[in-house]
């Protein structure tokens, strides 16, 4: 089935090459919203995606945070899952082999409590079938150690990226936190450390209180906000970072429609990840892929990658993409 994916659909080439990886289309699914890639199989064929970013994986299994872990907010979703995962060995033994037959680029999101753990994860995942890149999670807001604590310090980001670069030949997408004053500074640090791409943004730190009880709505008290509520923040960050770095950007944050995905591409992303939108409509990634294709076809844009960055200063907008 999946081998028959066509990069060119109706005359539009949806394929994107980024960090040396050929993606059949630019629409991936975001880490933490798509498990280890096969949970939605009863609903749609994941082989139609551009790629899969699997759940944040740690060295040892993690049970995660106490319930409740979710709270819907205006146009958004707070979560505090706390990196529940079966640990890298189970992922290698069970999950990655099951995913490999799809033939899709798989990015494994890795999270450590310290630099040595990140290094071990990178070494362990190098050479595993189907794994095409690592997404380095420097931005989880829901764990006490590691995660966001790394991602908010430029020197720590550069040092860790440099150390990982020496441990693996897999492309590294460093996933940035939006919970910083200057995301550009962090992006530059990751690039300087040898990142092959940047993934932005992770969730925004947030909180909700149940007024009937006067208690925090989440078992972990605070959580990460995702969904349409954060999209303008994410688009702004992609737009700023795209002007400061040369490596490709994987944009995410509240993408629900093809129009949303186009905003990220035009702001400078080469790829996008759909996450929370899966929860309102599991078919949204497929609808977004179809919408991108239609947008390009209607305007005579032959390649979707022509749209990357057309909104940036000095660029020519959609008209530029039409000329290519």
């Amino acid at each position: 089935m999946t081998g028959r994916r066509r990069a060119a659909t109706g005359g539009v080439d949806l394929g994107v090459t980024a960090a040396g990886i050929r993606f059949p289309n630019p629409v991936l699914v975001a880490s933490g919203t798509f498990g280890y890639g096969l949970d939605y199989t009863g609903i749609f064929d994941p082989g139609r995606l551009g790629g899969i970013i699997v759940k944040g994986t740690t060295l040892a299994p993690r049970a995660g945070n106490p319930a409740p872990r979710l709270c819907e907010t205006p146009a958004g979703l707070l979560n505090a899952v706390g990196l529940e995962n079966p640990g890298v060995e189970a992922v290698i033994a069970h999950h990655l082999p099951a995913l490999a037959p799809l033939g899709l680029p798989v990015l494994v999101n890795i999270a450590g409590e310290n630099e040595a753990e990140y290094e071990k994860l990178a070494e362990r995942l190098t050479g595993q079938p189907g794994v095409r890149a690592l997404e380095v999670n420097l931005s989880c807001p829901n764990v006490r150690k590691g995660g966001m604590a790394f991602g908010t310090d430029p020197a720590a980001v550069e040092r860790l990226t440099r150390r990982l670069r020496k441990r693996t030949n897999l492309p590294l997408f460093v996933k940035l936190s939006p919970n910083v004053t200057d995301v550009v500074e962090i992006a530059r640090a990751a690039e300087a450390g040898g990142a092959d791409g940047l993934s932005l943004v992770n969730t925004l730190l947030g909180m909700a209180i149940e007024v009937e009880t006067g208690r925090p709505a989440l078992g972990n008290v605070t959580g990460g906000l995702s969904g349409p509520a954060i999209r303008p923040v994410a688009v702004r960050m992609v737009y700023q970072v795209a002007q400061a770095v040369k490596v490709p950007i994987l944009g995410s944050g509240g993408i629900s429609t093809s129009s949303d995905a186009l905003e990220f591409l035009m702001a400078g992303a080469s790829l996008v990840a759909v996450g929370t939108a899966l929860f309102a409509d599991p078919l949204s990634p497929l609808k977004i892929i179809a919408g991108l294709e239609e947008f390009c076809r209607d305007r005579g844009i032959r390649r979707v990658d022509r749209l990357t960055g057309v909104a940036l200063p000095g660029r020519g907008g959609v008209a530029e993409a039409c000329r290519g």
Partner: protein
Amino acid sequence: MAAVIREAAALGPGLRAVWLEAPEAAQAAVPGQFVMVEGGPRRITRRPFSVSGIDREQGLIRLLVRVVGPASAWVGGLSPGQPVGLHGPLGRGFTLPPAGACAWVVGGGVGTAPLLFLAAELRRAGGAVWAALGGRTADEVVGADELKRSGAGVAVATEDGSAGERGLVTTLVERRLAGGGPPPATVYACGPRGMLVAVARRALEAGLRCQVSVEERMACGVGACAGCTWPDGRLAPDLALRRLASSREAPGEGGGGGPLRVCRDGPCFEVVRA
């Protein structure tokens, strides 16, 4: 991945019965399974609803919707002919006793929803069913008439005494246990967590099997997001949940406990001593 509303009617104040045209779900669903239903154009996640009845011939499933917020108000307010996003049936349902065996169902409030489907299947297989239903008020007691029509024995308790006897559903179960009649093969329960704990403790003390359907906030419903996990797999400090056998996967091993995704490992579990 969508269904069309066939019929929607009030069952009581703030409670709606919604029949949906969903032929595949109606064919596949087993008692205890649920569907994820769109909660309206501005909602971020779909909402889980237990299947409370099916009409396989007409390809219909029934949901009982207690209006508690904007999403349930939207689902409850849908009119015949309207389409609604839906996926399912999902999760592991109850395991049924041997055909003809006796079972008890214990429901609190709208938690009775999956038990109505279960009781209908048990009755169809020739089993005897006794139901204990509870709620704070008479308005919250769900499904008593339907269960009586199916031939089940029904006892009702409300906290304010406005229907049945004043008190908790647990009291009905205790009295039945003390009554010395034939014990059920399994006690099935769905309702508030405190009720589940009390009923499960009584059942296990009496040496009976107990299965519960639990509730948790969910986002995906398919096991992908880990939003509904109970990390310790416990209903209470002394009560662990164990995955039930399903056709999809092997049953859980050991004494239960450990991280359990309510959507995929459940929502129906066997309760065992921790």
